[in-house]
């Protein structure tokens, strides 16, 4: 009996691990930084919640920002935009939110949790990710519908899946994917491991995986461009830091990093 009880404990603990997996994130700034709201002087920690597809670009921007503002530190929590929006709604102590879709941003601003209007700072569009060397000779969306080509798409519920649906409809291509992945990185992983022959992912994701994956551009992606909005949060523990970070992302230096990662200018 005790053995069984202990096992049930293990099950519960396992479930707890799975459930807590999505919530990363550091603690926010200190109360002291809130008090010193002096105009330009930025100190303390800035906590940024950003879409998973921003991981590489924002990590660099964060380093630049800390270098430009001695005494500051930027901590990131990268996850799916919808998960982040829910964390903010549940009171996560964060300063800045950068979303991969206006829909998730709207959830935050509609709840009155944004400080001012969100600003679109980058755009991303889809490419066809294929294993390096493009063994199936895929040149466009129509090739994905060929028999014997296994395709992974994102689920419609996440931004990359919604964009894929729009692009496929624009091209008039009907295809049956083998899987609808929960986020863009999962779809990309299926290509990297060779389990599928192609996946529709963001150009930036294909670029970060360029050692295993080639990105095939296709014209219909222009009709399914993803806007990335950013906003300082109303309940930011470090409001000065939040505003300064947003300004840094929108600055020429921030834009240069984003373009370097494959994002387009808004």
């Amino acid at each position, binding site marked *: *009996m005790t*053995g*069984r009880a202990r*096992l*049930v404990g*293990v*099950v*519960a603990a*396992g*479930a707890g*691990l*799975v459930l807590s*997996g999505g919530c990363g994130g550091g603690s926010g700034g200190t109360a002291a930084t809130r008090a010193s709201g002096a105009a330009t002087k930025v100190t303390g920690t800035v906590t940024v919640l950003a879409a998973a597809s921003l991981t590489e670009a924002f990590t660099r921007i964060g380093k630049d920002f800390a270098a430009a503002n001695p005494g500051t530190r930027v901590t990131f929590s990268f996850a*799916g935009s*919808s*998960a982040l929006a*829910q964390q903010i709604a549940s009171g996560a102590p964060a300063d800045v939110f950068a979303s991969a879709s206006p829909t998730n941003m709207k959830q935050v601003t509609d709840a009155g949790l944004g400080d001012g209007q969100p600003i679109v700072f980058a755009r991303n569009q889809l490419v066809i990710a294929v294993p390096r060397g493009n063994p199936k000779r895929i040149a466009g969306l129509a090739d994905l519908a060929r028999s014997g080509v*296994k395709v*992974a798409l994102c*689920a419609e*519920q*996440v931004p990359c899946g919604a964009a894929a649906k729009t692009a496929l409809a624009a091209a008039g291509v009907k295809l049956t*994917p*083998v*899987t*609808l*992945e*929960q986020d863009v990185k*999962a779809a990309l*992983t*299926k290509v990297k*491991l*060779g*389990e599928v022959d192609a996946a529709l992912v963001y150009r930036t994701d294909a670029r970060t995986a360029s050692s295993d994956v080639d990105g095939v551009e296709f014209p219909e992606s222009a009709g399914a461009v993803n806007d990335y909005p950013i906003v300082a949060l109303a309940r930011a523990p470090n409001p000065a830091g939040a505003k300064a970070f947003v300004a840094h992302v929108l600055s020429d230096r921030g834009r240069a990093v984003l373009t370097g990662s494959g994002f387009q200018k808004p």
Partner: protein
Amino acid sequence: MRDKARTPPVLAIPAVIGVAFLVLPMIGLLVRAPWSTLPRQLATPHVLDALRLSLITSTTATIVSILLGVPLAWLLARSSFPGRRLVRALVTVPLVLPPVVGGVALLLVFGRRGLVGTWLDSQFGITLPFTTAGVVVAEAFVAMPFLVISVEGAIRAADLRYEEAAATLGATRWTVFRRVTLPIVAPGLAAGAVLCWARALGEFGATITFAGNYPGTTQTMPLIVYLALETDPPAAIVLSLILLAVSVTILVGLRERWISAP
């Protein structure tokens, strides 16, 4: 039978906290559930597909686990071979492995380019990822250790003398196992099978990583719940409750039939 002793507070207090800890999240689901949307959710075709798929795959994974796990448990409990402790430790690895990692590991072995998968594909034309069979593989991988540990414990606890008596009366080892050992460990086997089934039913990480997510073939209830959470959290709550209700009903039904609570 002695009178039930008064429970000492040192046990009662943590026990009550433990119950609250385990039950409160479920109450949270019940309180926040938008019950009015339940009929609409049930009418969505993918939901019933997912529920059916969940029940079929978790039951199949349990059967696979029994067929492979009971002999394995017997081996671990009753035979001695070099490296037995190591084998036991390895068998329980899926318990501590994050399920998503388990899914990646399965891809590396049974995937199209995996160690075994390449051979399966070239010899038999079988590819497991993105198939219902792949879901069963993922679930069995994660859930079988629960069964093995339960059954091994039961076999260890069983009195060896019954088996020895049967053997002295001329029964073969197979007969002893079938007619003596199995009936003695039946309660442990049942408990292990229930744990295994429940774990398989709730499996998410290994399934979505190894088998993918497609309605009708690999989209089980936990996967549909996760995706609903992306856009429509109230729907996700209702879907979780459907899964919860079905699994509790089945477990209670089984318990009354086969598992005698002491």
